[in-house]
């Protein structure tokens, strides 16, 4: 994919506070990239610099090969959707959507035509004369989206645009936005702190922590192959078990746990034998059985608790030295507390992470 946006060693300081640190990121044309991270990790700041609301302390932002640091916001041609929508309260829905077209000196007839099409796209045609204050949160969200898309901007920036919606509506909008992205071939930079939202919508996810990108990759990569402990813990749920590398064989390593058990696991990054590491084992990849079985990695455990959660059964286990959580399919049998079970998983279902 051709590179379209590039953050080149971007840093941002507020006084002594470093909010974004020497960050590199490139985004392809037509790509949907999520900036995912906890609150305060600098995602919004990065987006605001891309939109031109903030200036980087150092580094360059390139759009289509040219530095845009000195280009003022109104000439950047980027559609921004804010978390609180930021609709113009004194204008009707139609006037809100017409605004960016009027700014571009487009003739009245064409403005009307395009506003109509944009409203149709977000299924709000009936509400063209309403004021934003007369709309529900979800409707306001759609107007904001239509307004940011109607002028066919080069990039669409969204800062937690779905944060204020309730769960059902949010999931619907996630699919709608993803659909628009595919249909219109938009380049979208999407900020969120909701990992499932990022996984659902994105081509690639950049995981932020304290102003840095810990890992960038497809949803599958950041989930299945977390590069750091932070990523493993932030995205989804995981079991983190300490151990020491005994041997490295290509993309796999043998790790000895404090209990003495040996685990063979895939490796993220590079590790050397003798190095203390973490093993990340996703709970849904753990199988339980009462016999040892054939699996490569087996831990002897005892059930301490099990909770039925509708779509899955959540079993808490205790090994000699560490706890372990397993999520089993809902067809699984019950495991009453005290049951001795073997927890098994393949080498590909866990990762060695350098601390």
């Amino acid at each position, binding site marked *: 994919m051709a590179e379209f946006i590039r953050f080149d060693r971007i840093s941002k300081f507020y006084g002594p506070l470093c909010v974004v640190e020497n960050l590199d990121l490139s985004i392809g044309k037509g790509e949907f990239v999520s900036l995912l991270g906890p609150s305060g990790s600098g995602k919004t700041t990065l987006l605001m610099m891309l939109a031109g609301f903030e200036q980087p302390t150092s580094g360059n932002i390139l759009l289509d090969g040219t530095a845009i640091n000195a280009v003022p916001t109104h000439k*950047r041609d980027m559609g921004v959707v804010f978390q609180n929508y*930021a609709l113009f309260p004194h204008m009707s829905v139609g006037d809100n959507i017409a605004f960016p077209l009027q700014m*571009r000196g487009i003739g009245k007839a064409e403005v009307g035509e395009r506003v109509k099409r944009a409203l149709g796209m977000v299924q709000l045609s009936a509400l063209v004369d309403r004021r934003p204050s007369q709309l529900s949160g979800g409707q306001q969200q759609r107007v904001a989206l239509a307004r940011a898309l109607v002028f066919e901007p080069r990039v669409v920036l969204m800062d937690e645009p779905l944060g204020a919606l309730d769960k059902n509506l949010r999931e619907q909008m996630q699919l709608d936005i993803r659909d628009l992205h595919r249909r219109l071939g938009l380049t979208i930079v999407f900020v969120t702190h909701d990992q499932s939202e990022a996984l659902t919508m994105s081509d690639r996810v950049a995981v932020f922590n304290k102003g840095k990108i810990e890992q960038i990759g497809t949803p599958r990569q950041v989930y299945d192959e977390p590069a750091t402990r932070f990523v493993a813990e932030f995205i989804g749920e995981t079991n983190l078990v300490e151990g020491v590398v005994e041997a490295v064989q290509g993309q796999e390593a043998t790790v000895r746990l404090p209990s003495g058990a040996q685990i063979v696991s895939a490796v993220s990054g590079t590790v050397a034998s003798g190095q203390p590491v973490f093993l990340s084992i996703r709970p849904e990849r753990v199988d339980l059985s009462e016999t040892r079985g054939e699996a490569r990695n087996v831990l002897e455990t005892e059930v301490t608790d099990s909770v039925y959660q509708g779509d899955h059964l959540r079993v808490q286990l205790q090994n000699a030295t560490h706890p372990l959580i397993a999520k089993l399919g809902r067809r699984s049998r019950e495991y009453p507390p005290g049951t001795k079970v073997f927890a098994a998983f393949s080498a590909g279902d866990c990762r060695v992470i350098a601390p």
Partner: protein
Amino acid sequence: MPMKIAKATFATLTVLFLVAPLIAILPLAFTSSVILTYPIPSWSLRWFEELFFADAWRRAIVNSLIIGTGTTLLATVLGTAASLGLRNRLILFRGTMRTLFLLPMVVPAVVLGVGMQVLLAGFGLTNSYLGVIIAHTVVAVPFVVVSVTGALAGIDERVELAAQSLGAAPATVFRRITLPLAMPGVLSGAVLAFATSLDEVVLTLFVAGPNQRTLARQMFSSIRENISPAIAAAAFLFIVATVLIGLVVVLSRSMLAKRR
């Protein structure tokens, strides 16, 4: 229950205390007698006639309108500009600056009056309409600043950022977004400025010449010279104007509230 009655009584008494002067003066506007006292022998509009046809009173009303309008325009422009400037986060000592703008509200009017007199004399502006308008503007600007600052504070900054990102240059953002959203505040500021000018006596005494006698000033001097009920009629006019002004302010506030 007794508590409730006590509260209601207290509230009534307080209101009475506040409006007693109005109750005392207003009926006298409609007296047919030539002196400003009770009892009222019969009802008449003769003092309103006096107000509008006697030269001194008519000129006072016209002066008040001229000076009030000038003050309103000048104070609204200056106060709005000041409020917009005070929004800028990069301004040093922003809090101090804001306080400076509000200073004329608390500085005793006599002090301002003396200062104004000296200053305007320096520019040869005493005894001129412009001089009075400038003096009134000084005391009216704080009202505009308070009112417009309030309205601006209610504007979500992201709305303006959104406009920028949609392609609006800063001047366009101001014209299409900021100003319309602040307009109720600007309007109520303007109305307050007009009311301030209408009401102002002390500064007027210091800087106005005989040709700039305002209605308030005319009432002040005529109550010492001849206590004619024309004063009561003028007072009635004032009250009506004030109530109208109050209505405009309230309406613009509710307009503002409805938009949010």
